[in-house]
């Protein structure tokens, strides 16, 4: 069997605040296979974001090891990590994190700027991704001219544009209403069906159930890891309660 896309062993992250040591994450060992769709749940402060930042190579673990696609990333330099983020990972954040002074198209082009893609191809691919997320008409709009759902779609297009094998989303529906959330999850399921691995943090069970597997965190530990029994498939949702 191929090596897992993600493998972590005894992963931990401590923060030092003056004399106090805050353990945000400790002793996490798990694997995520390519093509999986993992929902991460747990109460606030349980370490979900900390975990996502570590597997997203945005932060460094204080203990344990992490292999991304078979490569030990624990000891890579900041620039090597940047390269990994650029080519292998796409991020979607709760607060969208778009550049406010750049248009939708320019925001989507950003990862390609750092991948050395020539301008003409950059435009073409950014356009393609925006069309894929249903924003073909909004390319020249600035983030402030877009709704929350549209901004999150721009973020998804940006995450997709370098064709990474995996997308990490930390509470992507946190700022969206139910309908828009369902649309976004439908988009994620479609991406997962096309072979992209997804890891998604959420507080809502109804969102987590779009995934195939649920990880539960508590006090910095992973306390449960279960397949989703009653998976929601996009388009089959019950109508929103009146």
């Amino acid at each position, binding site marked *: 069997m191929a090596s897992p896309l993600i493998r972590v062993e005894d992963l931990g992250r401590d923060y030092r605040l003056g004399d106090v040591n805050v353990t945000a994450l400790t002793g996490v060992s798990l694997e995520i296979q390519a093509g999986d769709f993992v929902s991460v749940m747990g109460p606030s402060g349980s370490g979900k974001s900390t975990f996502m*930042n570590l597997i*997203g190579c*945005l*932060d460094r673990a204080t203990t344990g090891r992490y292999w991304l696609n078979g490569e030990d990333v624990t000891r890579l330099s*900041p*620039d090597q990590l*940047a*390269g990994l*983020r*650029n*080519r292998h990972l796409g*991020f979607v*954040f709760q607060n969208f*994190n*778009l*550049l406010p*002074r750049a248009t939708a198209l320019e925001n989507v082009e*950003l*990862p390609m*700027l*750092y*991948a*050395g893609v020539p*301008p003409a191809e950059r435009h073409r691919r950014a356009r393609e991704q925006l069309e894929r997320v249903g924003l073909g008409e909004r390319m020249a709009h600035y983030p402030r001219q877009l709704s929350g759902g549209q901004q999150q779609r721009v973020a998804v297009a*940006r995450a997709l544009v*370098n064709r990474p094998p995996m997308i990490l989303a930390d509470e992507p529906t946190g700022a969206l209403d139910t309908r828009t959330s369902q649309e976004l999850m439908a988009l994620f399921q479609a991406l997962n069906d096309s072979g992209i691995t997804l890891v998604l943090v959420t507080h809502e069970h109804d969102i987590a159930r779009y995934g195939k597997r649920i990880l539960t965190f508590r006090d910095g530990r992973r306390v449960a890891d279960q397949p989703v029994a009653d998976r929601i498939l996009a388009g089959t949702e019950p109508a929103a309660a009146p």
Partner: protein
Amino acid sequence: MNTLDTLHSALGSLRANKLRSALTALGIIIGVAAVITMLAVGEGARERVSEQLKSLGSNLMLVLPGTITSSGVRLGSGSRNTLTQNDAAAIQEEVAGVLAAAPALRGSGQLVAGNLNWASQIYGITPEYMIARDWRILRGRGLDENDLRTAAKVALVGQTVADMLYGGSDPTGQTLRVKHVPFTIVGLLASKGQSFGGQDLDDVVLIPISTARGRILGQAQGRLQTVGQISVKMRDGADMQQAEEQVSALLRQRHRIQPGQDSDFFIRNLSEVVEAEQAASRTLSGLLAAVASVSLLVGGIGIMNIMLVSVTERTREIGIRLAVGARQRDILIQFLAEAVILSLFGALAGIALGVGGAHLLGHLADWNIIVQPLSIGLSVFFAAGIGIFFGWYPARKAARMSPMDALRYE
């Protein structure tokens, strides 16, 4: 990230804060303007001085009948005619390295040609004067020993005199009345332009010194053949200091002046005048250089300050860029580019201001101003250096942020 993208993004963020960018560049603008003005004034003065040296004749000293003490009262230069044509001959003979020691009488008077008249400087000279004062003949001939011996009524005229009295047409062969005495013009002098004081050096008439005595310049036909000045031209490479001492020693001996007594003549080394002028322009240049360097320093610190503010303000933007794959170098270059563009913009505005200011100053103070292309290149180079130097620390601070911390920044 390629150069064009870097430029595009840097210009974009500078444009987002137009007023702030302009104010930040102000220090550089003033600094560069001061540098440009300083160099323009300095170079203008330097060129004027070297031209002046040429027109004065380098290696030249002037011996003037000097202060003599009469009953304890010191009288000014020329108060008594103590120099003679024989003194000039003695200097020529006995001081080593003398190219020409030329005695001259000097006065002014009215010139008349046809129905035009003009007041001008009149010099009674010997042929050596032409060598000593670097006069060249443009048309006709110079004065010779024969003219001197016969006290011929022949004259050489300067360009200005020719223009004023003959309207620019060839004056040689024409008659010129000098203080009512008719002279024949035998030569036209090549132009020398202006002296330091703005005096027109071409406004002259040169006649044989023997002719000048008596009626023309009102000198008594004394046995001593007194002269108004002696121009001493030294050979190239001669030590002017030493020559001055030798001339002085010789004349004191000839005039029988006791040790401890004041000389009855004095010697002016013309390059001293030039040096004084040079020193004045150096002082001004130094002042401007001080303004320039302080201003550039303050400008640089201003850029650093604003870049630090900008890095803090844009922490989240930095986080986003890092998250999607920007390397430290990409962030570093992005912020450095902004600092450099800011200072280059300052340099361009400063150059415009400096060139304009230099010309205005030149116009108002009647100075010679030369803006050299090199000084413009230098300013641009300097400004880019300041941008890099003062932009480095903020840019590095941005580049070294942790992606996670940057993204979480509120």
